[in-house]
């Protein structure tokens, strides 16, 4: 098993990533107070969260050291996550009503 000899500390790299994540989180809090529409806000929040998550995955969870595993995990997970998004059109359908279906239009 991995043992002491030859192990170099990564503390420096961790701290840098840590600061980046905190900075992004801070940015999110700033955006939360800005005056933009909900979809705009959502897009920005999600984008930043993905960046944060990617940093954590790559450097905290060491996926950057193992490209095979990186591909397996990322491709698999992202594919499943994307496949889950079909439902959104129906969310909007419930919000806006189905076309031609409002009886009070008559």
């Amino acid at each position, binding site marked *: 098993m991995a043992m002491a000899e030859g192990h170099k500390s990564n503390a420096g790299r961790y701290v840098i990533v840590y600061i980046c994540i905190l900075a992004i989180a801070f940015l999110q809090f700033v955006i939360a107070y800005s005056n933009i529409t909900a979809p705009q806000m959502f897009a920005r929040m999600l984008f930043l969260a993905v960046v944060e998550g990617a940093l954590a995955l790559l450097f905290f969870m060491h996926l950057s050291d193992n490209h095979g595993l990186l591909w397996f995990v990322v491709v698999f997970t992202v594919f499943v996550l994307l496949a889950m998004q079909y439902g959104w059109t129906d969310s909007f*359908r*419930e919000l806006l*009503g*189905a*076309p*031609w*279906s*409002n*009886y*009070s239009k*008559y």
Partner: protein
Amino acid sequence: MAKIFAVTIIAIAILSAIPIIRHTWDPPADISTHGGRIDEQMSETMAEAGISFLASQILLALFIWKFSNTRPGDKIKTFPGGAKAVVWAAFLLVGTEVLALGVFGVKAWADVYLTAPAANAMPVQVQAGQFAFYFRYPGPDGTFGPLHPDQISEANANFFGLDTAHDQDSKDDIVTAEMAIPVNREIHLLMHAKDVGHSFYVPALRVQQDFVPGLDLSLHFTATQVGKYEIVCTQLCGLGHYNMKAYLEVMSQEDYDSWLKKQAALQ
């Protein structure tokens, strides 16, 4: 054993196809203007898939027949072309079938679901509840009054929750337990669910659409044959699901007018 098996497969495949070819059990004849496309799609699929079905079963049977009684000295042979031929065959044969039917099918689907009802279509509202359909006609004013779920009362026969005392639009609305429509007139059906999911299925009209509680939906269709047809519920809605139905009466315009008058008098 293998030969009997092969014969059995072929026999089953052919026997399975016979009722289809002889139209022993067909859906009720189509009475809608859009249904022709659906039927055409169905029969094309039936032809192509039927041939694929028979061909695959028979091929399977023949191979079983032929290759199960080899003698010890026989050599193993490989299917001409090998796996490559198979993959190509699958992509070409099934691929074209998929493409062709998939593309044609879009039109039939769009006819029902992606086109707007005509501006002069006649509106009828249908409400599904455990375990009955009720229909509402807007009356002379041509408008539907608003629904008040809290006022729904089976006991007072207020099935839709109309407030005829206060809502001007509701006063002349006509509520019925069967659906009558004039022939050759486009109907714009406005669908509303009272409690749980139900469905509106009229095989003869070639329409099926679920009711979604919390989301009003619509259908539009034109019936071309006078007659009496059944509307049945196809979405499991509870213990009375099997018995949830109503009649659809397609009438001539005159019959329809007098029917509506009679119903108005009954309100």
